[in-house]
Each structure stands twice: as structure tokens, then as C-alpha cells.
């Protein structure tokens, strides 16, 4: 019978027969999910493997080479890499639980199921700038005012930042328009630079962009309170939730031309060689949340300010800008994957 078409209730007995399901997860919040899942479906043991996207990919590839399969469900970010190295290579396959099929827009269903959305967007220190973001156009970051004071993680060390760079190029036209809006003149491209997005990246790097190695460093640099002239930079909107604990004053710049950054998905997929096909599907179904306002126990760990459920029926977190008001670009993993390496090479030359 067609497992893909089965409802959770139909899958349950089959899954219980299988008895276990292994989830590779890029976040440790899987532990909370595990507890909830086992409470919801007694008799099925969920095993959560917690490993970064990169490690998951390495592991899946190595397992495939050895002809073994231990994973049933893959919960992973880094969509562009996942598409090329796992999906195209046939190591994972898409699955959309029929229950949520209608609640997701197409971009979240294919090529892989997106469970929620995260961001890499322009953030500033709201203590130093109580009246709102100090910039209203990305191109301002390339000006003298912000020389040496724009900070982000090295895009050649973190895939999501590379995706951000790629997005600038994919949105070159918007970038060109924003340029004109900011400087009042159409953009002139440097030799060898063939679009406004790349020109932006180039100018940004030339403006003494400060690179660090982790998002937390960016947060601390931008957000630490007590700074008279804090830098500005790209980081996760959801990190704002740590403001109080960490002594930060992070705020998102949501009124920026043409956009403040990217919104990208966390993906759920089936391992192609899963030994527990029913339980795997059941787990994905569970991870997509129940039909309550907040997604219930399965989604609870992910119901945080600054991250958004892909399901249209889960209410936005009250502490954050709702997704529809958010100006970040949603990435297109397929398009991103196509030019990602090329952009990486360009950035490499810039460094």
C-alpha cells in the first residue's frame, strides 16, 4: 500500500510494528521532540542523533558507501547543499504528510518538506539606536559611515551566510534598484563584476567588512549593551530572544531597501533506505506539529520568536514580526544551489 498517502492513524500500527525510528537532527531540540513523540506514540522508540548539517551529510554519504542505513528521518538545514548532495544523489527522498499538504505553500513542499523558517538578516543595537534601524538601505553599508563596522560570519565558513550572499546576486535587479534609490544614480559595475548583487558583495568586503566565526560573536558584537557606536550586521532574528539573558539589545532592521536578508527553511526528509518507513513518516508528521494554534508538543521546541512555522495554520509567535510583515527574501534552494559555488569562488577572490 502507499505509505505516503496514509494518515497518521493508519501509519501508527505499522510504525509500532517497526518499533523504532531514528532521526538525524541538526538541532538538539530533537531531544524534546523525542520525549513528546514517545509520550504520544508509546511503543515506538525515537532515537535522536544530533549532528550538524555537515556532519549529517558526511555520515549519510559514508553510510551509503558502506551500504548501511541507520537514519530514517533527516532533519536538516543548509537546503542548497542538501539538494545537491543528498537529494540528487538519491540518499534522501521527499515526503509530505497528507495531513499538512494543504496547509503548506508549494515552495515548502518541494523539492523537500520545509518544517519552519529561520533567518539571516540585518540586525542592529536598539539601545544605541532607539529610534529604529540606523540604515534604511543595504547600500548604506558600503559607505564610509559603516567602514569596518559591518559584521557577519565568514560566508566561506557557514553555509547560511553563503546563501545570503547568493541571494544578493539572485536579487541583483532589486539590488540595482536599491542602489539608485540610495545614491540617486544608476549603478556602475566594476570590471569583472556582472551584476549589482555581486557589486554589493564586493563593495561590502572592500568597506572592511569584519568577519567572525560564529553567530554568537556577531550577536555579541552588535547587541552588547553599553556600546556607544556598535556595529551592524547579519545574524538570526530568533537570537533576539536571548537579549535579556545575554545582555544584548538586538533588533531586526525591517525597514531596509531592498530587503534585510534571507529567510530559509529547515527541511524534513526520509532516508531513501529507511528500514522503518512507517515510523519515519509518522515522525515527520509529528514534527510538523498538531492542529493546535502553536503546533502542539511536536512543534513546541521550534515555536520561538524569530522562527516561523511553514504551516499557515500555526499562529505567528507573539513576540516577533509575523512572517507576512517580514521583508526578508525567502531563498530558492534550487536556484541558490546552482550558482552557490560560483559565488563562493568570487568571495574567495575578494578575501
Amino acid at each position, binding site marked *: 500500500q502507499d505509505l505516503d498517502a496514509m494518515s497518521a492513524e493508519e501509519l501508527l500500527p505499522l510504525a509500532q510494528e517497526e518499533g523504532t525510528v531514528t532521526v538525524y537532527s541538526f*538541532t*538538539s*531540540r530533537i*531531544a524534546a521532540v523525542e520525549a513528546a513523540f514517545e509520550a504520544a506514540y508509546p511503543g515506538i522508540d525515537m*532515537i*535522536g*542523533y*544530533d*549532528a*550538524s548539517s*555537515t*556532519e549529517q*551529510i*558526511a*555520515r549519510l554519504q*559514508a*553510510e551509503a*558507501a*558502506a*551500504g*548501511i542505513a*541507520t537514519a530514517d528521518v533527516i532533519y536538516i538545514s*543548509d537546503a542548497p*547543499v542538501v539538494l545537491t*548532495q543528498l537529494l540528487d544523489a538519491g540518499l534522501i527522498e521527499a515526503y509530505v504528510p497528507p495531513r499538512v499538504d494543504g496547509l503548506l505553500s508549494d515552495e515548502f513542499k518541494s523539492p523537500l518538506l520545509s518544517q519552519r523558517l529561520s533567518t539571516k538578516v540585518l540586525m542592529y543595537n536598539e539601545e544605541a539606536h532607539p529610534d529604529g534601524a540606523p540604515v534604511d538601505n543595504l547600500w548604506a553599508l558600503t559607505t564610509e559611515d559603516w567602514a*569596518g*563596522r559591518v*559584521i557577519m560570519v*565568514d560566508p*566561506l*565558513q*557557514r*553555509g547560511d551566510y*553563503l546563501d545570503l550572499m547568493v541571494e544578493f546576486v539572485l536579487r541583483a535587479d532589486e539590488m540595482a534598484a536599491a542602489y539608485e534609490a540610495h545614491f540617486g544614480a544608476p549603478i556602475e559595475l566594476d570590471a569583472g563584476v556582472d551584476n549589482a548583487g555581486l557589486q554589493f558583495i564586493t563593495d561590502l568586503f572592500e568597506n572592511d567588512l*569584519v*568577519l*567572525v*566565526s560564529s553567530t*554568537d*560573536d556577531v550577536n*555579541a*558584537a*552588535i*547587541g*552588547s*549593551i553599553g*556600546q556607544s557606536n*556598535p*556595529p551592524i550586521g547579519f545574524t538570526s532574528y530568533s537570537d533576539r530572544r536571548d537579549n535579556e*539573558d*545575554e*545582555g*544584548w539589545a538586538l533588533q531586526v532592521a525591517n525597514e531596509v531597501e531592498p530587503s534585510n536578508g534571507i529567510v530559509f527553511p529547515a527541511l524534513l526528509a526520509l532516508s531513501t533506505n529507511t528500514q522503518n518507513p512507517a515510523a519515519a513518516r509518522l515522525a515527520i508528521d509529528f514534527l510538523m506539529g498538531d492542529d493546535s494554534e502553536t503546533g502542539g508538543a511536536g512543534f513546541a*521546541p521550534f515555536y520561538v520568536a524569530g522562527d516561523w512555522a511553514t504551516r499557515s495554520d500555526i499562529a505567528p509567535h507573539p513576540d516577533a514580526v509575523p512572517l507576512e510583515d517580514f521583508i526578508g527574501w525567502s531563498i530558492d534552494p534550487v536556484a541558490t544551489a546552482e550558482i*552557490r*559555488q560560483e559565488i*563562493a569562488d568570487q568571495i*574567495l*577572490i575578494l*578575501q
Partner: protein
Amino acid sequence: MASISPSAGQKRRFSLPQGLPLKIGVLIAIGLLIAAPLLRILFETLAPNSISAWNDVVLSPLSRNLLWIPLGNTMILGLGVATGCVLIGGFLAWLVVMTDIPFRRTIGLMATLPFMIPSFATALAWGSLFRNGRVGGQTGFLEGLGLSIPDWLSWGMTPTLIVLTAHYYSLAFTVIAAALATINSDLVEAAQMTGAKRGRIFMGIILPVALPAIVSGASLTFAGAVSNFAAPALLGLPVRMQTMATRLFGMIEIGQSARGYVIAILLIAVSALFLWFGNKIISGRRSYATITGKGGRAKRFTLGTAKYPLFAAAALICLLTTVVPVVILIASSVAPSSSALFSNWTLHYWIGASTPTIAQGQAGVFYNPFIVSATTTTISLGLVVAVTGSILGLMIAFTLARYRTGFLSGTINQLSFLPLLVPGIAFGAAYIALFGAPMGPFPALYGTFALLVIAGTAYLVPFAVQTGRAVIQQVSGDLDESARLTGAGFFRRMTAITVPLASRGIAAGALIIFVKIVRDLSLVVLLFTPTTPVLSVLAYRYASEGFTQFANAITVVILVISIAATLLANRLQTKSQPWLKN
């Protein structure tokens, strides 16, 4: 027993040169454990869809930033750190082992610690003193005093060099101290008789007779420095300084692993060159036999008036490289805000019950249900790998020390060093691919403790080889020969003669392995089934969620385990070498 002749049955004819069977045995072992995974990594880069990576890395417009500049930086770091570490480590080792400096044991313990403190903590410690406003956020203590710290002192090569030296010198210390402990004091006394001053004796006699240890120490610290990611990433990136390690990490991270592996292979090749050179130095006709069959006396240098200045210098080094990072680390596990490490301390992250307002309701590490099981798993893993790694390392070290020349020895030497330079993730992946599936009569090891042990052993055996060899080379050959005459077999001699004499070096190697595997993440995370996670994985989980305090608390737990192991090793040490008592 008046018969002269061995009966015909006893006769065993060797038409092989001495040592060949041993060499071949060792070669097979490391061929399987080390060469196979490395070759797999190499072949990965030669696959049709990744072969272009070679061109990209070596011969394209990208090469400059992808390879050459990072390579240059890496070599500066490697050589600089190795030099610094050997000097500082050697100096401290001499003080602790050979002189009557006050608080010898304490200094000795402190000097082994920096390696156990994660290098990010050392880098943070540097930042907390010297950080300037370039990146934003909190500035360091000195800028807080109103001093203006230039970029070169805050970021880039200089601080990275210093931090890595402060982190790795303890490796050199451990190896060199083990070697110095075996030097008959009459060699030093003979030098004293010539009228040579302390420094002269140190440079002219002590360091050279400990040359194998120095080469080992230099090799280990070189490898450590060139493969360290945390320090250059934290301190170098803001001024766009890249090393092979940061590049390699980045390439794998952004999905260009073929390029990453090519970089790794090139790093291995370059390092192999240095290693070969180092080995060349110590494999000549020269002997380093300082433990001889004429029991020399064990005596300490009296420092006289220089005692206190030297003590002050040693104490300062230890303080700066251990106490400061440890304080920062502990502070960061009790301070609610990472930007104000010394305010609002709370023990919540240690002993707090679950409060929804903090860290999404995580309970303090002591109440964390995982922590106990993770600690047990971690310690057992550490112990098992330390034992297996030491045994394999001992075999290799013995082979290398006794048969120093020849192609086979060279190969063994190089091979047994390489894992130090391979990124853990690549090594782990190769292991899964090679040994994950059932092989003939052997069951699939994937996901088992056994695979992790085997991989960990192979991955960390270089430490045991380097520390072991340095000491074994100092055991005069006639001690083994006189044991051979008694009819004792190879293993008997090994356990009764070589191991006790080299015990300090072996213990040092085992300790380093223990600390490494307990802290290691990349290999463990890839190979282990984390139903019962180890501590490092736990720390990683917290860190990736942004619960830095928890992560740091676990790091402190790991540090405490490491220190406990050191203390234990020290104890066994003194017990196991009664003839070195003073």
C-alpha cells in the same frame, strides 16, 4: 643445564634482517587502521566529479586565497608555535624534572593543563585582556583601562601565535619532561664539571640528548598548531587571516568537501616534509641512550640564587596559560551573560532546577539526566582508547626507536603521524565507509563502541607514538639485549623492561589520548550512536542551541575529568618509577 647446544627443535632460523617481522606487523596494523582511511580520503578527491578540486585549489585564480596565503599563515603558525612550545615546554620541563625549583609538582601539574583547556577558552582569555574595538561588543581589560590596543595585538597572527603556543606548549612539556626524567644525572654532572653555566648545559647537553623528545614535541605542537581551528577562527578572521584549518573547515562546511580534502591532503604533504626532516635529524648514527645499564645517579640541579627568579618566570607562565583561561571558562559557566563574565554570577547552570525563564527550562548540569551517563560513557571511552592507543603506539614507537633507519621505518613513522593532520570528520567518514559494513567474518561495527574505539585509537595513536618513541630512544639498547639473553620473548621484554623504563612517556601519551578523545567532537559525533551521548556531544548540543553557559559548564566538567586523570597519572608515575626517587 650443562648442555651447550640448543636442541634441534629449538632452532629457528631467521633469514630476515632483525626487526623485519616487527616492522611488517606494525605496518600491517597501521596500514589497515591509518593508511586505508587516508587513501579513501585521497580517492574521494580523485573521483571524476571532484578531481577538478585539485585544479581549483592548486592552479586556479582561487589558489592564492584558497591555498597559498593560508598555507603561508599556517606554516608561520606551525613553525612559530612549535619553536615557542619547545622552548617554553622544554624550559619548564627542565625546571620541574631536573632542578630543585620550589613547588615542582605544582608547576609540573600546571604545565600539563593548558592542553586540557580548550583552545577557544585560551583565545577568549586573550580577548578578555587584549581585545580592542574592531569587532564591537565588549572590549578587553586593557582597553578598559584606557589603553589603546592596536589591531595586530588584538587580532591576527600575533595573538594566534601566542594563544596557540600557550595552548600547546604543554604537549611539548609533557614529552620533554618524560624524556628528561630518564637522563642519568652523570651526563649533566659531566657538563657541570666543565664549568658550563646552567643555560649552556641546558642548550648544549640537556636539549640535545633529549632531541628525540624535542622533535616529538615540535612535531606534535606543529601538527596541533596547523590543524587548530578555534584560535585562528576567533582571533584571525576579523582581520581576514585564514589558515589551512579554517579554510578546510569552511570548505567542508559550505559543501565543497572535495576542496576541503584537497587542502587537508596538501597540509599533510607539507607537514610530512617537516616530519621527514625532523626524523632525519634524530635517525642518524647518534645515540640518545641516556638510561644506561650502569645505574647513574638521580640527582637534581641546585639552582641557588637563580631559584626564585626562575620560579617566578615559571609561575607566571603557568598562571597566564592556565589560571586565566580556567577562570574565564568557569566564569562563563556561571555568568548569565557572556558579555559580562564577572557579574551576576549564578550557579543555575550547574545546580539549578529547571526554570522556564532560563535557557528554555534546561536544568543545571548536575540535575541533567544525561550528565551522569554521559560522564561514565566519556570516561570509559577515554580509558579504553587511552589503553588501546598506548599499546599500538608503544609497538610503533618501539619499532621506530630500535630500527631507526630504512624505508619501512620511514613509512611507519610518516603514516603513524598523519592522523594528527586529518580533519576528524573526514577520518570518521572514511571509517564508516571502510569498516561500517560487515567484512568477511567480522560483523558490521557501525554504531558500536568498538568502531569508535578502533577509530579513536587510529586517530590518536600519533600521540602515543611520539611520546613513546622519544623515551624509548633513550633506553640504551643493552638493557633490552640483556633481557633477550634471559630467553624472554618480545612481549615479555616489552612489559618488563621497556614499558617500565619508558613509563613516563607512555603515561604522557596515554594521558594526551585520554584528554583528546574525551574532548573530541568530530570523530565521536560521526561514529557514535548518541543514545548515551558523550560529554563533548552534550556540550555541542548546548552550544548549538546558544546555551553557552551549559556548554561551558560541561567543558569545565571535561576539564575536571582531565585534571583528575593527570593527577592519577602523576601518582602512578611516581609509584611506578621508584628508582627515580630523590
